[in-house]
C-alpha cells in the first residue's frame, strides 16, 4: 500500500514540476510578490504632497509652516495665492492636503484669540485622508504646546500619555507582512491543488486512476502531499525573507508556527481539492479557486479588521482558514505567542481541513461525468 501511495505522490510531483512554465510559476512569483507587496502594503504615508495658501505675513504663520516643511511626512509641492487655484490642485490629485492660513492668523494668536487654521484634505480615499489628518493634527498640537510653553499660559488640566504595545512606532508594515505571508501561502496551495483533479477529469486520466487498486483515501493522500510539501518549502522561504529582509521581529515559538502552518495548509489544500473535485473542467476549477480565494483574503482581517464587519459577515469568517492563520502569524511574529495562546486558532483549522479533505475524497467517486 505504501508503495502505491509513494508512486502516486511521485507522479503528482512530476505532473506539477515537469512543465518548466509550471515550475517557474510555482517558485519565482511568490517570492517576488512578497518583496513587492511588502513594500507596498502600509497605511503609513510618506511625503504627503501639500499646498500652502498663506494670506498672513506674520511670524507665527511662518513658524507653523516651517514645522510642516520640516516634517519628514510632508512635502510641499505648491504655494497658491488665490482661493480658485486650490480646487484644480486637489481635483487632479496633485496635492492631498491644503493648508489655508487666514490673513489675521498671527494677529489672533498674539491677541490670545483662537486662530483658525483651515486644512482641506482629499477624501477620495477616506483612510488616507484620516491618516493625513492625524499627521496634520500632531504638527498643530506640537505647535500649540510650544506656544503655550513659551507664553507661560495655563496648559490644559489633563494631558494624554499614549503608548503602543507590541509595535511602539505603530509601523503598519509589521502588521501587514505577516498577513502577506499568509496570503501568499494560500495562493501557493491554490496553485498546486485547485486545478489538479479538474485537469485529470478533463483529460480522462482520473477515470483511469479510479479503476486502479488505489482507494479514494489513498488518492487523497497522493494529491495532498505535494501541496503540503510545496507549501511548507514556500512558506519557509517567505518567512526567511520577512524576517531577514524586512526585519519584522519573530518573537514567538517556531514549532507553534509550523504546527499552525501545517494545519493551515491542510485546510487550504482541502478547500482546493474540494473545488477541484467539484469541477468538471479546468475553467470551472479556476472560477472556484477565485470564488474561494478572493473572499478568503478579503474577509480574513488582512487589511480591514474583522471587528468592523457586521455580525452576519463575522459569522461567515469562521469558515475562513486564513482568518485563523493570520491571528497565529501576528501573535507569533509580534507578540511572542506560544502554543497555549494559539490553541483556539488550531482546532478550527483542523476541523476545516478534516471536513474538506473527507468531502473531497468522497466526491472523487461520487461525482462522475
Amino acid at each position, binding site marked *: 500500500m505504501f508503495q502505491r501511495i509513494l508512486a502516486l505522490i511521485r507522479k503528482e510531483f512530476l505532473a506539477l514540476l515537469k*512543465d518548466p*512554465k*509550471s515550475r517557474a510559476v510555482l517558485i519565482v*512569483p511568490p517570492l517576488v510578490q512578497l518583496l*513587492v507587496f511588502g*513594500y*507596498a502594503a502600509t497605511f*503609513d*504615508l510618506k*511625503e504627503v*504632497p501639500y499646498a500652502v495658501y498663506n494670506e498672513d505675513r506674520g511670524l507665527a504663520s511662518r513658524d*507653523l509652516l516651517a514645522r510642516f516643511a520640516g516634517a519628514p511626512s510632508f512635502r510641499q509641492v505648491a504655494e497658491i495665492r488665490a482661493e480658485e487655484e486650490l480646487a484644480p490642485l486637489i*481635483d*487632479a*490629485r496633485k496635492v492631498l492636503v491644503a493648508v489655508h492660513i487666514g490673513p489675521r492668523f498671527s494677529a489672533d494668536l498674539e491677541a*490670545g484669540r483662537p*486662530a483658525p487654521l483651515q486644512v*482641506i*484634505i482629499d*477624501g*477620495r480615499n*477616506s*483612510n488616507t*485622508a*484620516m491618516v493625513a*489628518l492625524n499627521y496634520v493634527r500632531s504638527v498643530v498640537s506640537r*505647535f500649540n504646546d510650544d*506656544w*503655550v510653553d513659551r507664553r507661560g*499660559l495655563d*496648559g*490644559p*488640566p*489633563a*494631558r*494624554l*500619555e*499614549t*503608548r503602543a*504595545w507590541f*509595535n*511602539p512606532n*505603530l509601523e503598519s508594515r509589521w502588521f501587514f507582512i505577516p498577513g502577506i505571508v499568509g496570503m501568499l501561502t494560500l*495562493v501557493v496551495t491554490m496553485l498546486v491543488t485547485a*486545478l489538479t483533479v479538474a485537469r485529470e477529469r478533463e483529460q480522462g486520466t482520473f477515470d483511469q486512476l479510479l479503476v486502479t487498486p488505489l482507494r479514494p483515501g489513498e488518492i487523497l493522500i497522493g494529491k495532498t502531499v505535494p501541496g503540503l510539501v510545496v507549501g511548507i518549502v514556500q512558506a519557509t522561504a517567505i518567512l526567511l525573507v520577512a524576517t531577514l529582509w524586512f526585519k519584522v521581529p519573530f518573537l514567538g515559538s517556531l514549532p507553534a508556527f509550523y504546527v499552525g502552518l501545517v494545519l493551515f495548509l491542510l485546510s487550504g489544500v482541502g478547500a482546493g481539492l474540494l473545488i477541484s473535485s467539484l469541477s468538471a473542467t*479546468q*475553467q470551472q476549477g*479556476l*472560477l472556484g*479557486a*477565485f470564488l474561494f480565494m*478572493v473572499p478568503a483574503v*478579503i474577509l480574513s482581517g488582512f487589511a*480591514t*479588521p474583522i*471587528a*468592523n*464587519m457586521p455580525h452576519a*459577515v463575522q459569522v461567515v469568517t469562521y469558515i475562513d482558514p486564513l482568518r485563523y492563520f493570520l491571528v497565529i502569524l501576528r501573535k507569533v511574529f509580534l*507578540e511572542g505567542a506560544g502554543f497555549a495562546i494559539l490553541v483556539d486558532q488550531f482546532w478550527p483549522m483542523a476541523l476545516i481541513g478534516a471536513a474538506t479533505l473527507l468531502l473531497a475524497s468522497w466526491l472523487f467517486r461520487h461525482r462522475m461525468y
Partner: protein
Amino acid sequence: MSKANLKPPQVAAAGNKERGGAGMRLGGLLRKEFLQIVRDPSSIAIAFVMPIFLLVLFGYGVSLDADHVPVAVVAAAPSQDSADFLAVLQGSHYFAARPMASMPAAEQALRQGEVSGIVRLRSDFSRQMRQAGGAPIQVVVDGVDANTARLVEGYVDGAWSTWLAAQAARRGGTLQMPVDLQPRIWFNGELKSRNYLVPGLVAIIMTLIGALLTALVMAREWERGTMEALMVTPASMSEVLLGKLAAYFALGTGGMLLSVGLAAWLFDVPLRGSFWILWGCSSLFLLAALGMGLTISTLARSQFVAGQIAIIATFLPAFLLSGFIFDIGSMPPVVQFITHLVVARYFVAIVQTLFLAGNVWAVILPNALALAVMAAIFLGITWRKSRKRLD
C-alpha cells in the same frame, strides 16, 4: 466596436455574397463562442454571479471605520472629574468602555485581544488636575494592528478635547487652544470608507472577470486540438481573436453594468461624474483586462499553467498595488514603477474620481490613455503570438 461585430451575419455578408466574406466568417465565429459560453455555465457565472456575490459580501463586509471599539477603563478612585471624562468616552459610539478593577486585569485583557486599548486615570487624578502641568491620562493601545491603534488614539484624542471644552465651559470660559484646527474633507465628508472601497472593488472584480473569462480560452483550443481545426478554415487568426474578444467583451460589459448598478443603488455610493464617461473608461479597461487574459492564455498554451498564472498575476497585484487600499504615493519609487504594470491601477483612479469627485479630466484623460495603451499592448502580443503555425 463591439456593435459592429454583433451584426447578424447575413446583413454583414450582404456586400460580399458570392464568397461568403469576412463578415460571415466573423458571424460564424461569434456564434460558436456564444454557444460555448452558454453551454459551459461557468463563463456566465463569472460574468454575472461573481460580481453580485463579491460586491454584496464585500460591500457589507469591508469597512475601515472602527465602531464600538472595546476599551478597558481603569479609574482607581472615582471622582467627579474622572466620572465626567469617562462619561464622554461612554457617550461616544466609537467606544465600548469596559470598566476594569485594576491595571493588571486590563493588561491581561489587552494581551488576550479582548480590548484594543486601555484608558487609565490615576487615583490622584482630581488633585493633579489642579496643579501646574495637569494630570496625566494614561492611554495604552494594541499596536499590532497599527491602523486601528491610530484610530483609537484619534478617538481618545477627540474625547479628550470634548471633555476639555466641557470643563472650560463649566468654568464660564471657552477652551483656549492657540491654533484651532478646522479640517474639511472634500468628496467624502463623513469619511465613510465604504464610499471609496466599493468603487475600488468594482475595479478589482472587473479585473478578475476580464482575466478569468479569457485566461483559458486560447489555451483550451490549443489543448483540445480545435485550434488546428480552426486553422484549416478560411477564417484568419485575427478573425478568430476578434470573435473571442467580441463575445467576451459583450459578456464582460454585462458584468460591468451590473457592478456599477449595485455600487450606485445598493450601496448608495454617489456617482458624481458622468455615467457615459464611466461606460467609456470601463470599456477600455475591459479590453485591457480581456487582453491580459488572452495574453496569458496564448503564452501558456496549457490550461493548467494559464490557470496558475491567472491566480498569481491578477488578484493579489490588483488588490495590493492598484491604490485600492494602499496609497501608491507612499510606496518606494521602484514599487511605484511596478504599479504602472497593473492595469487595475488606472481604472481604480478613474472610478474613485468619477464616483466621488466628478468629471475631472486631469485624472481621467491620462489614465484612460494608459488603459488604451495597455489594451493595445496585450492585444498586440496576443495577435503576434497566435500566428497560424504549429510548433
